[in-house]
């Protein structure tokens, strides 16, 4: 299965990557902006996306909307700080599969991803 990791912080990217090690995922891309995320999604059609909200060029909410309009079945988990909770609420309303707050709880991340990719 393929995963796309989106966060403007390389450290957070690594933490998420480390979190999915052992879950038999192929990390098909790491994006630091919403724009790159949309492009990478279209190229790779990953099974699951982790998406930050506050990012340069295009925020996670807009990226989520664009990916969803391209692929309504896209599975996107929002991972952001509570300071962006209003955006997180909007993201869940327009179809994000889950919202996880930072700092990331590794176990919860794994459970959430596992549940999201179930057929």
């Amino acid at each position, binding site marked *: 299965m393929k995963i796309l990791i989106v966060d403007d912080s390389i450290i957070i990217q690594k933490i998420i990557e480390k979190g999915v090690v052992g879950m038999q995922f192929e990390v098909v891309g790491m994006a630091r902006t919403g724009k790159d995320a949309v492009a990478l999604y279209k190229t790779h059609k990953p099974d699951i996306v982790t998406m930050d909200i506050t990012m340069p060029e295009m925020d996670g909410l807009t990226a989520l909307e664009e990916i969803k309009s391209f692929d309504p079945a896209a599975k996107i988990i929002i991972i952001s700080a509570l300071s962006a*909770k*209003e955006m997180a*609420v909007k993201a*869940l*309303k327009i179809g994000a599969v889950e919202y996880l707050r930072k700092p990331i709880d590794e176990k919860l991340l794994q459970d959430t991803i596992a549940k999201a990719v179930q057929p």
Partner: protein
Amino acid sequence: MENGDIQKLSREIENLRDDLKDSEEQNEVLENFVFGLEKQTAEAREEAQRAYQALERAKAETDLIMNSVSDAIFLIDEQLKLGAAYSRSLETMFEERELSGKNFPDLLSRRVEKEISDSLRDFLELTFLRPLRPEQYTDLNPLTEISASFDTAGKIKEKWLSFQFSPLRRENGIAERLLVVARDLTYEKNLEKKIESERAESNRQMELMYRVLSASPTLLKDFLGETRREVQELEDTFAGNQAASALIPVLQQAFRIIHSIKGNATLIGVQSIVELAHQFEENIKALYKRENLSGLDILPLLDFIFRLKQIIAEMQGVIDKVRGFQASLTDATDKGTLLGEALREMCGKLAASTGKKAEIHLTGFELLGDLASVTGIKDILIQLVRNSFAHGIEDPTERENRGKAATGQIMIAVETQGDFILVRYRDDGNGIDINRVATKAVRSGLIGRAEVVHLKPAEIAEFIFHTNFSTRDEADLTGGQGVGLDIVKKNINQLGGWIKVQSKRGHYTQFIFALALQALKSRGEDKT
């Protein structure tokens, strides 16, 4: 009748009798049944009665809870409307009655910022759209602590409110309704603020107490006496001529006085006065720059005087309380040594605040005796130490680069010569920058550009004693206020003495000053 007929008849009679018996039995069964039925009905009626009463009691209890609970409790449905039953405190909280059926975000939107009511709508819609994890009802809740304003009979009331949401779920896990519990935190918030300000106040009191206990009693007494006198002088200054043309001299005079108060407070270490005096100075400087200065502009300065007097009164209060304790310390040390200690302490404080290092070496202070508590000497030495830190002593690394010890040395030697007390004050700092002094003197209009080139370095150095002369551009707590050495010189002149400065660029600055013993003694007597 034949025999056979009779037998037949009697058999029929027998049958009839049996039938009658059967029917009597049946009757009895029926009667029993009806009786049982009546009994059951009565029991059922009683049970219904009991159940009804229990229901009544439960409703009364619910009403009691809903009418008396201090939390506002209510339900909202998928249309975000309030349910019919809610606790009475909700009406008190919202300053509005008949709330059932009203849209909750609408109800709030008039009283909070728009972003908050928008976020609330989003959040509530989400909770009815899909199940959330329990902690998400808290994490995503936009109303954990909000400030809202309520219009009550034309008066705006500010409230701090906190809302908690929990779902009452359907079988598919999606909320059917939300149970909302709201609390009014205004009282706690105000209490918090009050406690915070009381804590700050008590810290200030502690600082005063600490200063009073750690300062030498004699110095403290002098400080309070002197500061009271200076505050009086300040009030007299402001009470005088307030014609627009006279304001600048009034402000200059006030600045000088407040600067002296600041110096003394630094020496004793009363931070609250140092800070207040510093603000006072900054305010005066701002007024210097103002065009069309009027008497009204100086009114805010009077508040400073009021606060200054308040702190002095508080200090006096602390002193009175510990007087008994202090009395036993008063005679322990002679005043000359106390002055030396105070200067060392001040040197330590200036070192800490400037990042520079210096130590003070004192000789002959015991010769001063009681005269050490006379304001003149003390003021002069404070100013010179501050001056050393501001202009003389270099940063430790700079000193090391120049091949000097990182710690600067300040030497103060006191000796008596006839009718004079002679004091030699020397720091091994950067010396006086004659070129800068000359430039500044020209810029300040103290001398013409053409004339200054004919002066000897020693003559140029004398400008540092001139009123409003400072080579530092930024004012801070240690110097550079354009007043300092002029006060020193004025003080010395008033005490019948003189002052000279010698300096070698990069090596040292030395002040030698003399004070007339007679003048010192008579000022000492004036004071007591």
